[in-house]
């Protein structure tokens, strides 16, 4: 697999634009899936994944062949998706202070043990419900949780995708998991 990818990358770098289609074929589903899980919207997911491949093409010279191509393309796609969220609505952090309060942070704002109304569970399909809950996570936890539990990447790979130390990635996964425990557990 890696040898095949390396060969295609060299072809494209050598000026064979058409060979890039093979790379897109290999990674399009994974890229689209991650983009969709982060954004929760079909159109935006398609937009972001296409943009990700376009950027990969124009920046192919900066791709380090000793690393996995999947990690590189995930990184481009997740960054674009997170950018998209940030532009859409103001970002906030679980650690940020709630406006007008002294010691209250957003952690305390999660309705701890309140179960979701039954009719809501019935109404929403399970998948939609879980997706909605993912969307409630702050972007930086969202990416970590998706890469870990939905894409099943190793901590090391996630660290590379997010350009963060493994310890930081772990913390984000724990925080994200904790938030989802309250809503999905």
């Amino acid at each position, binding site marked *: 697999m890696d040898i095949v990818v390396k060969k295609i990358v060299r072809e494209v770098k*050598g*000026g*064979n*634009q*058409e060979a*890039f*289609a093979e790379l*897109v*074929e290999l990674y*399009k*589903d994974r*890229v*689209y*899936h991650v983009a*969709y*899980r982060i954004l929760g919207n*079909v159109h935006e997911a*398609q937009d972001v*994944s*296409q943009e990700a*491949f*376009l950027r990969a*093409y*124009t920046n192919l010279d900066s791709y380090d062949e000793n690393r996995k191509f999947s990690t590189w393309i995930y990184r481009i796609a997740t960054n674009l998706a997170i950018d998209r969220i940030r532009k859409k609505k103001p970002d906030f952090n679980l650690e940020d202070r709630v406006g007008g309060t002294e010691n209250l942070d957003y952690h305390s704002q999660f309705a701890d043990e309140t179960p979701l109304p039954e009719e809501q569970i019935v109404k929403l399909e*399970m*998948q939609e419900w*879980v*997706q909605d809950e*993912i969307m409630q996570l702050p972007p930086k936890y969202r990416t970590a*949780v998706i890469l870990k*539990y*939905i894409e*099943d990447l190793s901590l090391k790979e996630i660290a590379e995708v997010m350009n963060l130390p493994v310890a930081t990635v*772990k913390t984000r*996964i*724990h925080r994200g*998991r*904790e938030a*989802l*425990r*309250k*809503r*999905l*557990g």
Partner: protein
Amino acid sequence: MACSREQRTLIDTYLDEEMTTREAEQLERHLQECPECRSYVDECSTAVARLRSMARLEAPAGFTDQVMKSLPKQPKRRQWKTWIRRHPMVITAATFFLVFLISLSSVMGGEETVSVEGSGQYLIDESQNMVVVPEDAVVEGDLVVRNGSVEVNGEVTGDVVIINGQHLQASTARISGEIEEIDESMEWLWYEIKDFMKDAFSFSGNGTENEDSR
């Protein structure tokens, strides 16, 4: 929650599946006794299971085409380079043709004296630019004459080719092959190409046979 923060950290490690078997057994014993920690672990596991159960989505149809259309157009030079890389035979053929043209121009630009290719007995009269195959002579294979005329009185087992000259045939002549008179360089070019192709095919077909007959 009655249990300490350290207990929570231990549980995180447990859920990350980064515990040794002994540590895990120890924690599991604690979970048996502590309903709060147990429900915490259960909730986390359920949340994770729900995440893992999410359906895999595929990129929409036509995705690759759309990406390819969005790519910046390649500069012409690069396209040309790619094209060359993908069609090495064309370059080989072009190189052959170039070499051929060079050799052609050297021949065309050469002196106007008569030159002959062929094996057998024949006379060359340079003052009249004339090649004569005497009555009892035999030329084995083709006879090619440049810049001169040919008078065949004897026998030619192959073709007779005259470039920039005339063919004068006596009644006694026996020519097994064809007679070709070529006056213009383009025609000659055509003849050379035909000849080259014939050679190429007979080489690949008969191996060394062709070599022996010359």
